[in-house]
């Protein structure tokens, strides 16, 4: 398989007043096309930093991140914006839907940014919320908001879907629904999904699991038999 993305010896330091925080210390990995990757680790272990670097929201302090022919560590802000626009879909723990736009408008917003978007109305059906198209986010439950957020991310038809604790604020049944959508996108659209969690059960749906601790990538485990989200419950 061909690597979609390569990270080599990346480090990330933050300056907090006088103190330098080493969020990532010499992390290297490759991500292949069509993979479902779960990143596991306690809070502050560098999971989110890694995801933000992959998504071009943050830049590395040293090391290189290569996506196709694009070196993310050398790209200027305009290049990174274009990279996010064309290739990346992001999903957050707290959904981050625009409160002034309806469900459908939220999805359509990301379609406007893409060169090859999917149909917003069809995606709304796929996440099972066609009857909610004209509702504002504050009238939707957490699970529904997250499904809209997923539809919004998928609507751009991204190559790489990055999810930061997408089920963190949801109960387990709603969480499984959300995971089914993400897993389905990975398998049926043959796209790459990277998912952060601190829930070990969720790791069982992954092709590979990255274990983070104290800013280091401790080990990478290959899962010979990835489970379906239906088969896991927590």
């Amino acid at each position, binding site marked *: 398989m061909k690597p979609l993305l390569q990270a080599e010896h990346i480090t990330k330091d933050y300056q907090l007043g006088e103190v330098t925080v080493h969020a990532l210390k010499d992390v290297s990995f490759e991500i292949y096309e069509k993979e479902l990757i779960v990143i596991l680790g306690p809070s502050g272990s560098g999971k989110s930093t890694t995801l933000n670097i992959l*998504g071009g*929201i943050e830049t590395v302090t040293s090391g290189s991140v290569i996506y196709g022919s694009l070196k993310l560590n050398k790209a200027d802000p*305009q290049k990174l*914006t*274009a*990279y*996010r*626009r*064309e290739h*990346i*879909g*992001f999903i*957050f723990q*707290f959904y*981050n*839907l*625009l*409160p*002034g736009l309806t469900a459908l408008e939220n999805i359509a*917003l*990301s379609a406007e*940014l*893409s060169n090859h978007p999917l149909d917003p109305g069809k995606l709304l059906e796929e996440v099972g919320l066609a009857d909610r198209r004209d509702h*504002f*986010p*504050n009238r939707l439950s957490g699970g529904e908001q997250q499904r809209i957020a997923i539809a*919004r*991310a998928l609507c*751009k038809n991204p190559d790489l879907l990055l999810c930061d604790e997408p089920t963190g604020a949801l109960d387990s049944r709603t969480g499984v629904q959300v995971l089914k959508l993400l897993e389905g996108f990975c398998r049926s659209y043959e796209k790459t999904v990277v998912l952060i969690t601190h829930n070990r059960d969720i790791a069982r749906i992954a092709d590979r699991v990255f274990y983070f601790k104290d800013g280091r990538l401790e080990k990478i485990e290959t899962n010979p038999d990835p489970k379906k989200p239906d088969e896991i419950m927590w």
Partner: protein
Amino acid sequence: MPGFLLEMQLPGLMPDGGWILLAKKTITGPAFIENSLPNVYAHWGDFLSAMKDTLIMELWAGSVSFLIGLILGIVLTVTRPGGILENRIIYQTLDKIVNMFRSIPFIILLTALMPLSRLIMGTAIYVRGAIVPLVFGCTPFFIRQVEAALAQTDYGLVEAALSMGCSPLDVIWRVYLKESIGHIARGTTITAISLLGLTAMAGAVGAGGLGDFAIRYGHDRNMTDITWITVLVLVIAVSIVQTFGGWVAKKNTH
């Protein structure tokens, strides 16, 4: 029964200081005005032109302040530490200038800016001369209102928009502005009402207006009915602005 002349004119600042005349009509006032508000009746023409002057100052200074304030409020928001276009020099400079103008009492600003007024408007007196100081007095206040309105925006939304590939301009337009219309409407209402207060002082440079009218007749000549009517007109004006602003804010809050 004597009538009085009502001239309906388009509020506008013509280069020669004149107004566009829309209609001229003599109407007769109800008898109760003549009897119970004798001074208002006697100075009806002055009263109308005072209202007109106040309206013109409010609309012109308000519109200019709205535009400049909106832009600079956005600049402050995006350049602040941690903002999407963080820029220490622009932020600190603008922040200090806003503080400086906000701390100058308006009556001082009014006379201090006379040379600038002369440069921009061609005169430092009358309504035309008051516009520049009004803009300088009102804009810094509105900048702070815009800043406060935009600060209500959840940074998660900004992050989400950036992660989708929105450029900084997209974020300003789609997230900061569109999601803050309600808050900006509230800030605009407060600013418009505070500007109305400032126009009352513009009489100091001969700009006329309701404040000047009330001081000159109501206070200086002890014509109490004029003071009361002026207050009444201002209460109505403030109520209209407040109601309209509240309506816009409510319509845009989800």
